[in-house]
């Protein structure tokens, strides 16, 4: 998860690299940012989750898969207030697209300057020309936007455990790890050490210190519903 932006309107050196800088930029450039509804695609969903972390001490470890009951009522309302305060600065005073793709389309039409996007989708969009070459990508460095992992599991008592581990070794070769970036547009989940030097330099702006993950469980449905009930309405878009 990262932010995709239009370098013709926002210079790479001015791109926000912390949450506070991002909020300041959004408010200083009303109508130039849009994120999609949190249940309609991970880009918006993880942007919302990043806001939740922000108001809770920027500490992902506070959120576990089973602690919504105790923690939820305390954790979410401040996040809604934060997101509501951003609403008037969104495109059309509080419009939210219904998917990752629509956000990218609006960015490509120049309707907005910045959207949160999946790294793979953004990189693929750039390579196929859906997004122009002038599209910039940036990751927050204070705490990265939440991401998702693709995992390979190996059974310790598997019949072909040795073969499976051989596959893992293969996946971790520089060739494959680089291909994760160049072919899939993903991020090397294990370590950037397996990636070639050139690629490492090319993407150093978006290399997060770690890729935090937000737990699902009861959080998921309550974040989705809470956003719809608190953030999406209650905005006066007629202005």
């Amino acid at each position, binding site marked *: 998860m990262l932010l995709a932006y239009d370098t013709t309107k926002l210079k790479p050196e001015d791109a926000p690299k912390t949450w506070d800088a991002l909020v300041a930029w959004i408010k200083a450039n009303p109508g130039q940012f849009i994120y999609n509804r949190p249940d309609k695609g991970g880009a918006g969903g993880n942007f919302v989750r990043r806001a939740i972390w922000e108001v809770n001490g920027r500490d992902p470890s506070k959120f576990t898969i089973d602690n919504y009951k105790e923690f939820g009522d305390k954790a979410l309302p401040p996040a809604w207030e934060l997101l509501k305060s951003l609403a008037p600065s969104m*495109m*059309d005073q509080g*419009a*939210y697209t*219904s998917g990752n793709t*629509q956000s990218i389309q609006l960015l490509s039409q120049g309707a907005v300057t910045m959207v949160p996007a999946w790294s793979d989708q953004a990189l693929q969009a750039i390579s196929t020309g859906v997004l122009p070459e002038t599209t910039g990508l940036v990751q927050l460095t204070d705490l990265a936007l939440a991401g998702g992992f693709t995992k390979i599991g190996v059974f310790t008592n598997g019949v072909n455990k040795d073969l499976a581990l051989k596959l893992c070794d293969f996946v971790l070769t520089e060739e494959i790890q680089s291909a994760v970036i160049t072919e899939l547009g993903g991020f090397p989940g294990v370590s950037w050490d397996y990636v070639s030097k050139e690629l490492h330099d090319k993407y150093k702006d978006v290399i997060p210190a770690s890729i935090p993950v937000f737990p699902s469980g009861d959080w998921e*449905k309550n974040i*989705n*519903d809470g956003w719809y009930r608190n953030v999406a309405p209650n905005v006066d878009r007629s202005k």
Partner: protein
Amino acid sequence: MSLSPTSDIVGASKKSGGLIGLLLVAVPVLLIGWMIIYPIIAAVITTLWLRNDAGAYVFSTQTYRFFFTDGYSLANLGLTLWTTVVCAIILLVVCLPIALYLRFATGRLAVYVQGLAIFPLFVPSIILSYAFIRVLGPNGMLDILLNAAHLPKIRSPYLTPWGPVIGLVWDHIPLTVLILMAGLGSVSDASIEAAKDVGAGPVTRLWYIILPRISNSILVAASFAVLGIFSAFTLPYVLGPAAPEMMGPFMQRTFRDLYDPPNAITQAVVSFGFCIVFGLFYVRSVVRNQRAR
């Protein structure tokens, strides 16, 4: 006595004819029972017999009470009704002139207009949605044209309630035009010429001769439009605002994203209740039509 074998044969063939008829009808009837009637009943039961804390199923109107006291749900229902009514009105206003033109015009142009009017039938909603963003969205084709003519940009209807309205109207034009044209087909040229002959001008002819004759078709067209629009999903989902949302996306979200089948089904039953009212309009007009014959 010599006649009896003959009459037996007639009787037998009638019987087997009736049996074949029943078998032919049985398949759709069973399908309707299985795929429509049963789910309706199941849905109503599911939403009225809820599991209590002790794990027993008890009668409860709780989900309905929640729906009808929840401002958010009611706003969604309200937007759905608003969209439906506005779309139905715009559809009739847009399609009636097209249908009248196609009924009475002759020549090559009419063929092209008809093709154009039927064209949306072949465009999937999802493709229409993205085309809408490209054309009417911010910095879309319309804005580019306006800009080229040194005019200000439009306030894009994308992500506002008017987005789904425009998309749904476009989507429903073919069906509405076809139904109205079918109705107009039963208005004979001679009956219109007779009206001209006794001195009726164009407006009088439309109001007193043509519209009363196609009132049934208008009702059918409106019912079809309402039924289609009330439960629309893709266009409101992609083009509409995040909140309030139409019942289609609301139900889907409640079910899929909130993992809340009882409330999703309650929303479905409420939607079904509204649709059935329009369905009854349609049935009534069909029955009335058959009686008139």
